[in-house]
């Protein structure tokens, strides 16, 4: 009981003693807040830096606005250079927190500050920040990719060179390509034409280029066998290339007289207009063999089903993952993804091309090892942390920004 009363008295005294001090603190903070309210917001934490990974001539500015205070009407970006000249380089509406100054020269030190306008007059001014713009020689986030790409290119070129030197190279059977000769042969026996559809992409697409290489082989075969070859295209440039390639195929087969330029014709750039036109050719010319090789989108199945309905042997191939299922369902043979690119090596049996296939295999092996090591280290890394950093490193290696 005694203890309690002593404690209460102490508490009272303590409260009485501290109360005035408390009040003083509060009043002080009220005064500063009031002053803050009448001040216009100023830009703080201004940072100026050379814009990363560019060709130079640019400085990036970032800042924050003070939280308290009156919101300014607009912000002015000020800049000075070593010659001493000061200029207003941009006026931004309120709310901006970044700006890129693209009007600078490389190698000169610029100083920046930001002024806040209210009612047309400068009401606040930020601290200064300095930057020297420069051009960079490499994208940092792409170094990993550059190294891997360089290694793969080196491996592929190494195998091409060793192929050139005549090293014997094995290549597994690709059913769709084995069937090319048979298909052309069958068309010849039946006295019907061969139809070659190189897809709807333009000549800048690698699948179209791969398709043109195979077209050359098919043209040589049709020239040898003496059957006619129809190539409708959806791009003018592809038409031009196809004409060259087919003509060359006929020359190589020793039958330049049999080459008929009219058989390689442009229809239209329009995806479905082209599909309608090719469908028309299929039902009227009734080809015995149809090649659908290149880049295909939704028209893949329109063409493959119509080709099927006229009873042709169909060999299709594309690297478009979304269209492969339709070719698999509607065609006799399908070159899946990479097999399309392997075709030129496979058909020509040229050692240097076969060498590049071996290089591709080495590249795939590299990725397989990368995946397996990555997965194993990530999994074990969940229980034993040192391995986690290995997985992180591998992920970073294949990250491209």
């Amino acid at each position, binding site marked *: 009981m005694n203890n309690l009363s002593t404690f209460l008295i102490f508490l009272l005294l303590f409260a009485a003693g501290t109360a005035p001090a408390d009040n003083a603190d509060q009043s002080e903070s009220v005064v500063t807040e009031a002053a803050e309210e009448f001040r216009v917001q100023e830009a703080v934490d201004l940072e100026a830096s050379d814009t990363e990974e560019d060709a130079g001539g640019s400085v990036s500015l970032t800042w924050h606005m003070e939280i308290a205070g009156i919101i300014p009407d607009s912000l002015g970006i000020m800049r000075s250079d070593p010659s001493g000249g000061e200029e207003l380089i941009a006026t931004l509406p309120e709310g901006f927190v970044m700006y890129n100054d693209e009007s600078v020269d490389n190698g000169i030190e610029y100083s920046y500050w930001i002024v806040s306008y209210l009612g047309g007059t400068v009401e606040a001014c930020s601290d200064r920040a300095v930057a020297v713009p420069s051009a960079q020689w490499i*994208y940092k986030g792409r170094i990993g990719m550059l190294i891997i790409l360089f290694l793969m*290119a080196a491996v592929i070129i190494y195998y091409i060179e060793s192929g050139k030197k005549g090293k014997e190279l094995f290549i597994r059977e690709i059913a769709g390509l084995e069937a090319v000769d048979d298909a052309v042969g069958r068309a010849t026996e039946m006295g019907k034409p061969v139809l070659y559809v190189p897809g709807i992409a333009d000549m800048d697409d690698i699948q179209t280029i791969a398709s043109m*290489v195979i077209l050359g082989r098919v043209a040589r075969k049709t020239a040898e066998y003496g059957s006619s070859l129809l190539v409708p295209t959806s791009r003018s440039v592809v038409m031009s290339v196809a004409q060259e390639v087919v003509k*060359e195929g006929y020359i190589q087969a020793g039958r330049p007289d049999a080459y008929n330029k009219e058989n390689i014709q442009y229809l239209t750039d329009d995806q479905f207009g082209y599909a309608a036109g090719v469908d028309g050719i299929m039902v009227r010319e009734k080809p015995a063999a149809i090649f659908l090789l290149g880049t295909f989108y939704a028209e893949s199945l329109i063409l493959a089903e119509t080709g099927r309905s006229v009873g042709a042997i169909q060999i299709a191939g594309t690297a478009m993952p979304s269209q492969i299922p339709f070719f698999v369902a509607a065609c006799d043979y399908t070159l899946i993804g990479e097999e399309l690119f392997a075709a*030129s090596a496979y058909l020509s049996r040229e050692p240097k091309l076969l060498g590049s296939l071996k290089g591709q295999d080495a590249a795939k092996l590299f990725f397989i090892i990368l995946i397996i090591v990555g997965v194993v280290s990530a999994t074990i890394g969940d229980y034993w942390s040192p391995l986690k950093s290995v997985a992180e490193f591998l992920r970073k290696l294949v990250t491209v920004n």
Partner: protein
Amino acid sequence: MRLIIPLAITFTAGMIMILNFFIPHQPFRLLGDNLQEWFMIVASGAIFLGAMNLMHVHSRKIKLKLKNWKYSPVTIIGFLLMLVTGLIYGVTEHRPFDYLFMNVVAPMGATMFSLLAFFVASAAFRAFRASNWRATLLLTSAFLVMLGQVPIGAMIWDKIPLAKVWLMSIPNTAGQRAVMIGAAMGVVSTSLRIIFGIERSYLGGTD
């Protein structure tokens, strides 16, 4: 000699595009950006080649009275109709060119596209036969996903939509990835062969 200059241009253009990806410094930035635009311009300019070829093929058909020549005037008139209305009235909305496109060309495109609904059915009917165990897998996964796509699947068994999601997110992803990685290797090696002039058959002969 006639091959060397085109191959040199191919090499230069290819290397510029590759370096442009890794090096932000001039002149690669400028060259890379320009080259992409140039490609577009050259390919667009080439469309006149195609147009002339189309007109040539059909007028020849009419002249020689080849099979189905009676339809060739339709192509020629259709082509000229679009060309003339486009050149005279421009491409803005609610003008004749736009009217023809919206009411004739676009519906034809949509109709050809919609033929797929029929073809997808006939292809499924014919191709999805359990002739061997691999074909059976193809058939089963297609069938399960189809069931999972429509309400009836969930009514039969509430795990069917789950099976669909699993098939789409696991085996489908794995398959897509394998195809994509493999194809990328094909693209890299084909590109290398083109840039270094090892693959040159697209240029035709050496005449």
